[in-house]
């Protein structure tokens, strides 16, 4: 581990001075590769703040469950016998055995294979094998662990491992509007995330992904090969003349806002690279759902490109969930956005998603190559500080008071680190 170049305060365990590692427009490389910092992030971010876990449409029926995660920790997202969504921890309270070994299923109870303790899908201990050995003892306190706080916004299920803290609404703040924008693109206002997730293993720190999701500076270069071989025409969105915006919503949430471009062109479904004629069923359903005028505006504005801190990335037509598993390893979970009641567009959403993202994706395989090179590069000692100054001179506030700048500016990344510094230096 390089010591010499790092300030004493930064190197001393226990009382790491994050103010000495994060400045408004530059950050210290150590933040990406120091295992002690990763451990502290688990405590101060992943096991504290609101983290996206899953979507209610993944467990449509009573007794459905699916294995999800909060940071490296697996979480069972369950719809119990009464239909209530619960987040249970997958650990047998007897001797700690991993309780459920499956990705998903439907069951009213979970039995531990080790000594056969059985738990209801509400998390309560129903019974143990050979009960005579526990004569006179209470079952109280022997239930499955739970994620202390759970909150659902329009189907998006979030959990917080802190018993107390700000509400989900407060956490989402202005970024809530981006989730609404996504759901407006559904004729029913609902999603059905039923296509299953790809899991892209990435040998890099999670923050490289967090920062890149709303980096409008890289696409012209990292994805130049795709723009060259397809006639997508989206390459121009990432140039100097683009009217698209980057936005810092606060609380670490950031956005790449393409609406100025789409509104200028005024063509419904251009955001999706198609026309109303090609998706007649979808357009009909949208008109029925919202009225023609509103539907037209929604189809011009398109779906958002927003990174909800720390792990939910909506990339117009994909839902990404970032899962840190180690200081140098992250899993990118990704699925296609699927709108309830829109089969014709859903098919195209799946096809485009399979082509562009995941381990073999025409786009994401190259992003992921950059993440891994980022991680290896960050460990080189000199220069120690990395630069996030792009567009400092042209930042301004939008009508809602959020900081915005040119599509290629590093306003989102500066916003992420501002929030990160708050979390890492917050009193307990």
């Amino acid at each position, binding site marked *: 581990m390089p010591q010499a170049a790092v300030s004493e305060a930064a190197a001393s365990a226990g009382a790491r001075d994050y103010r000495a590692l994060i400045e408004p427009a530059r950050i210290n490389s150590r933040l990406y590769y120091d295992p002690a910092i990763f451990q502290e992030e688990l405590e101060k971010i992943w096991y504290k703040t609101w983290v996206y876990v899953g979507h209610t449409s993944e467990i449509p029926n009573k007794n459905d469950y699916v294995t999800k995660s909060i940071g490296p920790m697996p979480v069972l997202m369950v719809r119990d016998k009464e239909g209530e969504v619960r987040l249970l921890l997958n650990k047998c309270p007897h001797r700690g055995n991993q309780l459920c070994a499956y*990705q998903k299923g439907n069951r009213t109870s979970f039995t531990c294979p080790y000594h056969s303790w059985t738990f209801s899908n509400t998390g309560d201990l129903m019974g143990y094998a050979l009960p005579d050995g526990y004569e006179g003892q209470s079952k109280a306190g022997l239930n499955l662990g739970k994620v202390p706080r759970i909150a659902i916004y329009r189907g998006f299920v979030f959990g917080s491992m802190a018993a107390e803290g700000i509400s989900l609404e407060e956490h989402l703040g202005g970024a809530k509007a981006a989730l609404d924008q996504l759901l407006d693109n559904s004729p029913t206002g609902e999603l059905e995330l*039923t*296509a*299953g*997730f*790809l*899991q*892209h*293993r*990435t*040998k890099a720190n999670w923050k490289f992904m967090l920062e890149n999701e709303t980096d409008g500076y890289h696409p012209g270069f*990292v994805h*130049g*090969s*795709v723009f*060259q*071989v*397809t006639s997508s025409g989206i390459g121009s969105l990432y140039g100097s003349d683009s009217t698209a915006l980057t936005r810092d919503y606060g609380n670490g949430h950031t956005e790449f806002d393409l609406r100025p471009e789409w509104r200028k062109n005024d063509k419904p479904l251009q955001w999706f690279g198609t026309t109303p004629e090609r998706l007649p069923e979808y357009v009909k359903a949208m008109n029925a759902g919202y009225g023609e005028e509103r539907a037209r505006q929604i189809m011009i504005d398109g779906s958002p490109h927003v990174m909800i801190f720390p792990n939910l990335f909506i990339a117009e037509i994909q839902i990404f969930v970032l899962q840190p598993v180690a200081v140098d390893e992250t*899993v990118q979970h990704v*699925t*296609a956005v699927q709108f309830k009641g829109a089969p014709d567009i859903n*098919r195209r959403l*799946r*096809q485009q*998603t*399979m*082509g562009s993202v*995941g*381990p*073999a994706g*025409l786009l994401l*395989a*190259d992003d*992921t*190559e*950059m993440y*891994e*090179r980022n991680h*290896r590069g960050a460990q080189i000692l000199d220069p120690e500080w990395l630069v996030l100054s792009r567009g400092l001179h042209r930042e301004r506030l939008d009508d809602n008071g959020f900081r915005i700048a040119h599509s290629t500016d590093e306003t989102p990344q500066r916003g992420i680190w501002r929030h990160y510094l708050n979390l890492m230096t917050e009193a307990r």
Partner: protein
Amino acid sequence: MTALAQSFADVSAPDLAATDAVALHHQVAQFLYLEARLADTHDYDGWEALWTDDAIYWVPANGDDTDPEKEMSVLYDNRSRIGVRIRQLKTGRRHTQTPRSELARVISNIEIAEVRGNEVEVRANVLIYEDNLRGDTLWAARNTYRLRMVDGGFRLVRKKIALVNNNKPIFTLSFLV
């Protein structure tokens, strides 16, 4: 309708069932070795030329019995998307393949599962050793191929690569698998 459950296409031309079983097995194996070599050596044009127009190149995720028309796959290319994939590789700016992966794959356990008309369905196991900037990765898969006899030689109609660990997180898969 899953890709490999689709009915055999053109049953007009030569009847492979009439071919001697040993000779057919040999001919199939030679074709699989050719395809493997073209992929290992990044002979993009040679590899692309093996495919028929109704091609499906498929790497399922989350098991080997999913429906690619409804569920996410790691890769589910028709002929036109195979073409885009190859053209992207050939730009020289497909960063994940710049520099290219060094590859050596071994194909074994070749079984002819079904012969119908001018088509044959083949199962084989494959182990692929990949070396790239990240390090070394070993890929293991149970493959299913559908080959069609066209003008005296086999062409590739369908290739399904069922990675044995496709229900777990996997690294970038950007070489021709």
